[in-house]
């Protein structure tokens, strides 16, 4: 089984709450759910829609074909009715439309009867649950858990009226639940909280803002200092101050904000102060498409910041990956005293997915702080060592030692210097850490067949649609598989070298226009892709699109 419900309307019509309630209910009925939102950058009006796909098997992305459309305005019907499956149905208020194949219901009046015309979405929800053939209990419980006391009765009443109003159309049974429903940004924030982040500051910028708002929500309960600061320049400089003082610190933004952080990123490099930064990508350049998705900042975060210094870039592939990689990022940042950049995107950030609850017992906090006695004399924050990593202490914790960090080139004590020899030693020291990082990087995930003739390469959130499309193609006995990069800089080359040998063609699938991953492959592995499937219209790939475009090139 595999169903999609689309809810469409103008901003401000209550679609958010409806989709949240419906998605959560479907999860509670035991289904695997994926919620995908398509929003315009406006608070009222426009055309927005949310697609909720659910199945008895794990789902990773959205599909083009729809079973039920719940239309809050006529535009929704006009735009999406072409995607309706043969036995699909459109649900709308009778004022909206009375065309064929549309179940025009008395939604608004029913809601008024239930106590408030704004409860129209709850009437709709009742009808949807009934049409799917599900009992009303779990959905009502979700309403109870979610809605404010003051509006609960009206909405439950409206739900029941909606439920009574229609006939069963599908025959679904509930299954076992036990999973969580979470989006990418929340998973990142939860990862940070689990990793012991105690300082998170940022400046609102779609689609990164909910990382900040989640941290803010959890701040008092967990003792995490969180602040909306004056700008992104302040954000990263503050995080570095906090980290210098010994606290695990993180900041984040989307491309424009990350651009403002680039000088401080370079500072993190030279003062060798650990920090974790998340870039939730949206299409650029400049303001671009604020509420939409793209994977175009890979090169940017690899090179952002002047001068040469080691850093690590990890792209996030799904919500589970987002959680665990965030926790790992904190350890890596402290182990090598470097900035670690996480790359997410709007599609992953906002897409809610069911997943196995994160295992907090698996999370390790490794701080790599020097706690033993130090030699007599001044403390050398930048002591030259074999590995390039110097023993790091926290100010105020050693009675006779002070800690000096400096954005100027400095000697081992942290004091400003212009000595040619010291300069060279310090550059070598920092570069050694970069070389060491290569021992940490994880090879990409291999999905599909073991040694595919058709080798896909992709990174980050494209994982979802690629995975499902490959499953369909493997069923058709096509030799296809994919390397899905998480760690992406330093760039892992082993598996690529191995799998490219037996591959007939390498197909690069990316959500950008310049095939940035292909560039990395050429640069670091001397391997290039043969075919590129690129998408840069601001939307994420659907399974159907990946499947179709792969079929075209595989023949």
């Amino acid at each position, binding site marked *: 089984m595999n169903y999609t419900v689309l809810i469409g309307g103008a901003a401000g019509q209550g679609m958010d709450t409806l989709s949240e309630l419906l998605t959560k209910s479907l999860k509670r009925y035991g289904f695997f759910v994926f919620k995908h939102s398509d929003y315009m950058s406006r608070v009222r009006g426009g055309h927005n829609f949310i697609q909720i796909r659910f199945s008895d098997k794990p789902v990773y992305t959205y599909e083009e074909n729809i079973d039920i459309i719940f239309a809050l305005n006529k535009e929704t019907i006009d735009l999406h009715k072409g995607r309706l499956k043969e036995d699909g149905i459109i649900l709308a208020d009778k004022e909206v439309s009375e065309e064929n194949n549309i179940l025009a219901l008395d939604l608004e009046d029913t809601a008024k009867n239930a106590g408030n015309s704004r409860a129209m979405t709850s009437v709709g929800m009742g009808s949807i649950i009934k049409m799917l053939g599900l009992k009303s209990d779990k959905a009502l419980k979700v309403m109870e858990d979610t809605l404010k006391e003051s509006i609960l009765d009206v909405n439950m009443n409206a739900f029941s009226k909606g439920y009574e109003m229609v006939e069963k159309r599908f025959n679904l049974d509930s299954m076992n639940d036990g999973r969580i429903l979470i989006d990418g940004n929340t998973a990142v924030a939860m990862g940070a909280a689990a990793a012991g982040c105690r300082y998170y500051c940022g400046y609102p910028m779609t689609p990164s803002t909910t990382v900040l708002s989640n941290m803010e929500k959890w701040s008092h309960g967990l003792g995490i200092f969180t602040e909306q600061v004056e700008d992104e320049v302040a954000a990263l*400089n503050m995080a570095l*101050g906090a980290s210098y003082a*010994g606290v695990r610190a993180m900041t984040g933004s989307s491309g424009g904000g990350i651009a403002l952080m680039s000088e401080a990123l370079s*500072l993190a490099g030279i003062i060798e102060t650990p920090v974790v930064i998340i870039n939730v990508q949206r299409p650029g350049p400049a303001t671009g498409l604020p509420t939409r998705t793209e994977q175009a900042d890979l090169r940017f975060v690899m090179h952002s910041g002047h001068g040469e210094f080691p850093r690590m870039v990890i792209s996030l592939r799904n919500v589970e990956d987002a959680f665990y990689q965030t926790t790992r990022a904190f350890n890596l940042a402290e182990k090598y005293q470097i900035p670690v950049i996480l790359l997410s995107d709007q599609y992953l950030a906002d897409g809610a997915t069911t997943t196995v609850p994160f295992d907090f017992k698996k999370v390790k906090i490794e701080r790599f702080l020097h706690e033993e006695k130090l030699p007599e004399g001044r403390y050398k924050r930048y002591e030259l060592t074999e590995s390039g990593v110097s023993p790091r202490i926290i100010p105020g914790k050693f009675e006779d030692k002070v800690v000096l960090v400096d954005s100027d080139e400095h000697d081992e004590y942290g004091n400003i210097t212009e000595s040619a020899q010291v300069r060279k030693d310090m550059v070598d020291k920092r570069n050694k850490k970069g070389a060491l990082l290569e021992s940490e990087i994880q090879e990409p995930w291999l999905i599909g067949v073991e040694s595919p003739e058709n080798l896909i390469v992709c990174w980050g959130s494209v994982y979802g649609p690629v995975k499902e499309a490959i499953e369909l193609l493997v069923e058709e006995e096509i030799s296809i598989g994919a390397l899905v990069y998480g760690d992406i800089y330093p760039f892992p080359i082993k598996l690529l070298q191995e799998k490219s040998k037996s591959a007939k063609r390498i197909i690069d699938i990316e959500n950008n226009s310049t095939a940035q991953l292909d560039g990395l492959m050429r640069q670091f592995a001397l391997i290039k892709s043969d075919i590129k499937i690129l998408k840069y219209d601001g939307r994420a790939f659907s399974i159907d699109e990946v499947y179709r475009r792969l079929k075209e090139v595989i023949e």
Partner: protein
Amino acid sequence: MTCEYDLYDPSWCPGCGNYMIIKALKQALEELEIPSHMAVIVTGIGQAAKMPHYIAANGFNGLHGRALPPAIGIKLSNKDLTVIAESGDGDTYGEGGNHFIHTIRRNINIAHFVHDNQIYGLTKGQGSPTTAMGQVTTLQYDGVKVEPVKPLALSLTMGAGFVARGFSGDIPQLVELMKEAILYSGYAHLDIFQPCVVWNKVNTFQWYKDRVYKLPEDYDYTDFNAAYKKAMEFGDKIPTGILFKVEKETYEDRFEFIKNGPPLVDAELNPMDAEKLLNDFY
């Protein structure tokens, strides 16, 4: 007795006002008996910003214009540290102007010493935000064409609870002002006249000496209107001392877990503490 804070000899030009300021700072920290490992000097970039290199305290010599953000990060992470942000007039009122405004709004418990030489020293004599209108500089050949910032009036009207001015030519007063600023619970703004003997031939040691006068004993520093008048006084006579000082709740005290808990840096980190967050997602 040797000063615990003594380190290298600075590389400033002979006669630079910064020598007096660092002398006063060391004395102030000594007299307050703050152990050197519990003090942090946070600076941006400029001549003034080299302070951490010449004083045996913890130091964070960050980016031009960005002394305040790391100072805030440090103080919130470890409230037991004495945090002093220190930088030039260009660094503070120009490149870092936005942080200056918003740090005042927060009222975080740090002391902020601005070495105000009314010029860009390190980059060789360009006009700074406090350079006088009309003054000829190495860049503004035919004179500065914008009004100078009035730093004390700015911090005062933004709501700072401690606003003061010192002069590097009066070390005893400067030491007292620094001590007061450090002891003040909240954000303390101390603008310090610091002659740059090389690049500012207008605002010389003598120029300041001829103009500064100490606020009288009976001056009421809790009177905002009086303070505003004094903050605007910048001509033949320029007042020094504490212009304004009132008690205000600090930023960190608005966070219960910071106010009543141990410093954040001492928190035991355990991933299991966050596991309860999952409950909302079932």
